[in-house]
């Protein structure tokens, strides 16, 4: 199959080909889903190389699982489950994370705004890293990845009520931790930031 055709094929077809040892199909799957996997891993772990390690492990496990894959479960959900479990597992075993060593620029034209944004990101990440793993993962999945409470509950293998509680405690802790940074934010940014998710 030509690369263009592979890129247009649906996940089930690519998984079937991957299950028979098709490396081209597998590469197409990786390219299609790597950003979503890396986003969760990076936001949770806060480190680029650790996120890449986790993502690589996720895709290696996907390769192993491909012959037994049933298309009734959407692949993105399957990959998210693998990613969340591997991230939590890694954090359980590894040293506590202190701070992201690199913070990506936002591409702003204003150097002062860029500096402020970088400082805010640094402060936010430091505060996130001090949260317990489950709270932190709940924040990443709900606030950053835009999943519903029910989806987060499924991934964390807990009840929606427990997720709401995790989120509430996490927001309270972050608010306390980021007190000065949050107070210094301009009103326009605050107004823009507040939008009640309809989930």
């Amino acid at each position: 199959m030509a690369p263009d055709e592979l890129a247009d094929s649906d996940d089930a077809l690519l998984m079937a080909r991957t299950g028979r040892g098709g490396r081209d199909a597998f590469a197409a799957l990786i390219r299609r889903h790597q950003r979503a996997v890396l986003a969760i891993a990076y936001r949770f772990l806060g480190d680029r190389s650790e996120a890449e390690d986790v993502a690589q492990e996720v895709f290696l496990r996907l390769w192993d699982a491909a012959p037994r894959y049933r298309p009734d479960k959407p692949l993105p959900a399957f990959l998210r489950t693998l990613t969340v479990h591997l991230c939590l597992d890694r954090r359980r075993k590894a040293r506590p994370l202190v701070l992201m060593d690199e913070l990506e620029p936002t591409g702003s034209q204003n150097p002062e705004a860029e500096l402020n944004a970088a400082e805010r990101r640094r402060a936010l990440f430091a505060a996130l890293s001090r949260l317990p793993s489950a709270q932190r993962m709940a924040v990443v999945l709900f606030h950053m990845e835009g999943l519903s409470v029910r989806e987060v509950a499924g991934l964390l293998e807990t009840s929606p009520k427990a997720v709401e509680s995790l989120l509430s405690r996490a927001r309270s802790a972050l608010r306390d931790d980021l007190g000065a940074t949050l107070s210094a934010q301009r009103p326009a940014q605050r107004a823009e930031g507040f939008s009640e998710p309809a989930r």
Partner: protein
Amino acid sequence: MRCRAARKRISALGGPAYGALDSALSDHLSSCSGCAEEYRRHVALLGYLASEMPVPPFRDLAPSVLAALPARRVAWGNAWRWGVAAVLVLGALSVGYLMGGYWFSPSSAPSSSGMASTYQEALSGLPSGSVEIAYVSTVSPASNPGEAR
């Protein structure tokens, strides 16, 4: 409403159970500057969470993942072809044997040393000089007509 309950409600904002400020919380915020500030910080936090953790561009992982793949599945993936080929070859050999091809039977196939002694025996029984004639007669007249005459 007390401050403790108000702050608990504020923390829940941004989740699915609380769509908007209820009147009790709203009344409390308008009368309590501490909780009003807490609410402002909470709103700012929600803005941060939504926008302050952009995912940087990552390299394409496909080459490194493919390089790290174990080779075993590919080998087993093609194993059935080798299995079919082996069965076909064995089947062909069995059919050849059953159809009476003595060349498959070790007992009926003459060895090279056996063949040599058979020829020697045959030649020793011939009268002197006839060995040459026997040799010439084995050469096809068409292939060497001059010598045959």
